[in-house]
């Protein structure tokens, strides 16, 4: 069976800076694949390119075998790709419920239907279950991360892109967020998980990709990548 997501020689440029160079990897349906690498390696650029938030300079991105390289973000979301951005990026001046409803923006414009769905989604996240009417900007870091993931789920994605969900969180909260990620995977959501620190990601992932200075240097099952000497090198730099 073809993989759910496939990158073929994807390059991304920010002006003159080449942030990704000919990156190729794939994500199997029903798995968690982690994308790890040092700060500035190009992890966010990769998932943002998959989500359609930054343009690809060359190469192809295939989703369910279909070329989505040139599609706008809204079309990709409608097809089943959703992203929880690095730094959570919740809408701080709107309520938790409003944030969730906006997550379903491409799917429906019917407010009462969306509100019902947002409340159902909220009930699945104990961290924020009773915070529906609170302004999202006043939530704690862990709650904001839970909201970011819940918002990304509102579009009912087949592929969920999570960019550093543990960023800036206390260990106890990281465990809670990772429990959520594990639960989502158990329910069949395919996840591409970006982390700077591999230890957490390895606990839940089946496959791992390692980025180094915008290039993919290592990929395979977690059990193999974990013990590969090149992994340490990716973090220590050349």
């Amino acid at each position: 069976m073809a993989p759910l997501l496939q990158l073929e020689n994807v390059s991304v440029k920010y002006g003159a800076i080449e942030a990704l160079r000919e990156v190729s990897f794939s994500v199997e349906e029903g798995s968690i694949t982690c994308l790890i690498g040092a700060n500035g390696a190009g992890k966010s650029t990769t998932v943002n390119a998959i989500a359609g938030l930054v343009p690809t300079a060359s190469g192809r991105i295939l989703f369910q075998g279909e070329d989505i390289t040139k599609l706008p973000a809204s079309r990709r979301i409608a097809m089943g790709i959703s992203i929880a951005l690095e730094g959570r990026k919740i809408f701080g001046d709107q309520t938790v419920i409003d944030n969730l409803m906006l997550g379903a923006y491409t799917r429906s414009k019917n407010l009462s239907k969306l509100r019902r769905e947002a409340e159902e989604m909220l009930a699945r996240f104990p961290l924020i279950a009773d915070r529906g009417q609170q302004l999202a900007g006043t939530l704690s870091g862990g709650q904001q991360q839970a909201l970011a993931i819940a918002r990304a789920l509102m579009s009912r994605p087949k592929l969920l892109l999570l960019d550093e969900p543990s960023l800036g969180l206390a260990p106890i909260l990281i465990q809670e967020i990772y429990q959520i990620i594990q639960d989502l995977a158990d329910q069949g959501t395919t996840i591409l998980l970006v982390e700077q620190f591999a230890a957490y990601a390895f606990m839940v992932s089946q496959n791992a990709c390692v980025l180094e200075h915008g290039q993919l240097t290592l990929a395979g099952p977690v059990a193999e990548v974990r013990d590969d000497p090149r992994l340490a090198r990716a973090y220590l730099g050349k």
Partner: protein
Amino acid sequence: MLLLFLILGITWGGIYALVGLGFNTTFWTLRILNFAQGEYLMAAVLLSIGFNRWVNLPWPIAIVLALAVTAALGLVLERVAIRPVLQHDPRSHSWVVTTLGAGIVLQNLAVLLFGTSEYPFPKLMEGVVQLLDARVEKQLLAVFAITVVLVVLFDIFVNRTLMGKAIKAVAFDRMAAEAQGINSRGIVMLSMILMALLAGIAGLLIAPMVSAHPYMGTLMTVKGFSAAVLGGLGSPVGAIVGGLVVGIAEQLVGGYINPGLKDAIGLIFLFVILIARPQGLFGKKVAERV
């Protein structure tokens, strides 16, 4: 007399509030202030007159068509005077000059087409009503009623529709909004259309009271801006309260102190608030986002 001054003040204040809301819409989505706003007010009025006089369209059709053209001019403004500036440098403030300049161009075009004479504009309603000791023109009450309806509609649109929430989302974080599938470019266009329509309708409402001419918009830019800043940029409630404060104050000052001070009072409020409370009455203190 006090009652009449208050009614006049509230009605004019409502107009300033509409223009102030227009300032807010583009401030939300683009983080810019559109100083051509008053000229959009003038454009809607003169275009209506043009369509009525020269194309012989009946007033309702002339007005609808004029508003449509005004909205289209709003999109043109974004394309020629705002987008290039922000594309070149998102933190540039050159839009102060480019929007002001676009306004002057609009004004000069209007002078070319219409000359500098004043044109009468039809009232919605003729006659006066007696309210306690004040004889109030029905037109004034109609303007007031329409303003209230528009403000309520604006509030419903921004706060009770998904599109309104999407506008706020784009204002808050463009990339995060895009990540939800919100087309931020479309939202920006929508905000330009809203700006032009709010200004245009405000113009159509005041045209019968002030008579129409190419220079009618400039002072309205200043007063709408005062309303928006007084209330706190970005706050719709602020724009409404700011508009009412300016509107009532200028009637009272003009009526009881000196008519010559009428147009200055809004600016005096503006300077005082900028010194005492720069974020405005209802504004939130925001650190410049980089």
